[in-house]
């Protein structure tokens, strides 16, 4: 087990304990069951209790210097690989992508801002964040974002009849 993995396991256990504590407190305040033997609070209490016990087990194992193990199969491709040999990794781009997407989600709730306009702006910003920014690239990105946003707007409004306002 690497130090990095140990820190990640420690963080996972602590966050899990926090989630369990919150859930336990919230579930404890629920009124008792009226119609069935378990009621709405029992399952959350059981699950959070069991989860907390397992998180404590992880902390104990870490304290004893024992390995926790790590998942070898990945749902997300690319994160489990060691890319250092082939290319530079850009964690900042992941953060920027996330923040831009959050900003886009917030922009969609701004009254009066049309979906197609917000989408074109978001797509352009993200293409330029992730890709090259030479003059020619900016022109292509602008074209792609306007055409793409228009097509998506049409698809959602006409084909799926989603109310995007």
């Amino acid at each position: 087990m690497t130090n990095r993995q140990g820190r990640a396991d420690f963080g996972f256990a602590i966050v899990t304990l926090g989630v369990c504590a919150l859930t336990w407190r919230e579930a404890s305040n629920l009124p008792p069951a009226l119609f069935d033997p378990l009621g709405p609070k029992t399952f959350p209490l059981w699950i959070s209790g069991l989860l907390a016990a397992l998180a404590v087990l992880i902390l104990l194992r870490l304290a004893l210097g024992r390995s926790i193990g790590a998942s070898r199969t990945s749902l997300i491709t690319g994160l489990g690989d060691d890319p250092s040999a082939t290319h530079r990794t850009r964690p900042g781009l992941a953060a920027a992508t996330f923040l831009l997407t959050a900003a886009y989600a917030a922009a969609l709730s701004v009254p009066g801002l049309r979906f197609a306009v917000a989408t074109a702006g978001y797509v352009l910003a993200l293409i330029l964040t992730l890709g090259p920014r030479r003059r020619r690239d900016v022109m292509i990105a602008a074209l792609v974002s306007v055409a793409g946003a228009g097509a998506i707007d049409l698809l959602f409004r006409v084909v799926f009849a989603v109310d995007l306002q």
Partner: protein
Amino acid sequence: MTLAEAFLGLFALKPFLILLGGVLMGIAVGVLPGITAGMLLALTLPFTYYMSSVNAVILMIAMFVGGVSGGLVTATLMRIPGEPNAVMTTLDGYPLARAGYPGRALGLGNAASLIGGGLSWLVLVLLTPPLAKIGVAFGPFENFALVIMALALITSLSDGSQLKGLMAALLGMLVSMPGIDEASGMTRLTFGFNAMEGGLNSLPVIIGIFALSQVLADAINIEQGTEHVRARMSGIFITLRDYVVHGWNMLRSSVIGVWMGILPGVGATIASIVAYTAAKNISRTPEKFGQGSEEGIVAAESANNATTGGTLVPLLALGIPGGLTDSILLSALMIHNLTPGPLLYRNHPEIVNTIMASHLVAHVVMFALMTVGCVLFARMMLIRGHFLYPFVLVFCVVGAFALNNRGFDVWVMLAFGAIGFGLELAKVPLAPFVIGLVLAPVAETELRSGLMATGGDIAPLFLRPISGTFLAVAALALIWPFARAAWRRRRNVSWASSPPPSPP
């Protein structure tokens, strides 16, 4: 509707176009590195709400089959598994393509995919009805115990860390609980937020975990350069003799794939690894594996496609998803108020038969499209990520919003994208999380129904033969890996402490 009628129904214009479009989209995401079939299914899920149930399942199955198969192209021509399950194909597909036989490598993989898919369809059709008949006899306690057994098997089979697998499953269960408790009508775990009264819908959670976190990972690796071999049609049509030569390998690997598919949580990636290893161990020329062995390509591709039918067996017969994509299919059915399991067979035979018919027809369509269009698909893999990811994320945002027209769901999707990304970085398996999320409401409802029926007596859960057996298997599955590890440690200690042999 019978199975024959379901087959006929697929050849009407609209269903066939949906199937064709689904397979095409599935292959396309399989071809595009960093975009997975799970992501496509999750993103399409909200929009199936606007379709009829039959058309929705046709689309989902077609995308599922196309996605599993499309990974072959990038694995062979770029040495990048377009889908995680194509990882073993890269070992021999790419060397064979580099040696000047890209068409041959694609042709063999494609044929093996068809045979694997076809054989798994046969198992699906033959095994599901009797299993569903057994499932009809299950009461609430049996159903609860079945869910617990499935979760235990999934966590015990999550390789690397069973402890983390178990915690991931429990976290997933916890996430499903906020909102209105259906049995009592009371709201719970809202933490004082009005928006939480509607609960954390599983769909935005799944989109966040499958799609957003994947794009974030792709953004980190955006500078990854790739070499590729140019696709050629020559050699793509393999002969009858090739089927005869590789027939036994295809059959064996398909059986492995089907079995691995039926087991909850194992999935196509592990199936292809096991089939590849088995083929290498049995081969007369094991030294060729990893250097362009045709047997290696055939084993990996037969097995990963064979899991598609296997995973559908427990889903259709018992309502238990065998894997991640099944959990999305389960959600798709639930959106249409269809509960997978034995009663689906009785109440909605048209859905079950359409799923079965679509599975086979999608494989045939996939085979035809991959044979004719491999050069075109190969060009798609050159689309640059920075043009692709923004549009994927737009679909994530709109998809999360579209199901309930709730802005809150978009924030849930964003939050779980970040959570999924964090869990993956901490090497916590996400598969048990998603399956726990989907199965927890079933487990809770069934247990509470059972207890209401028995007036609060829990003893029948353990004493009834079927539920008792399921719980025993669950306990064994949870305890066995720890017991085995402890036994190995003891054996190693006793070997280390035994005196060295005396010199002659």
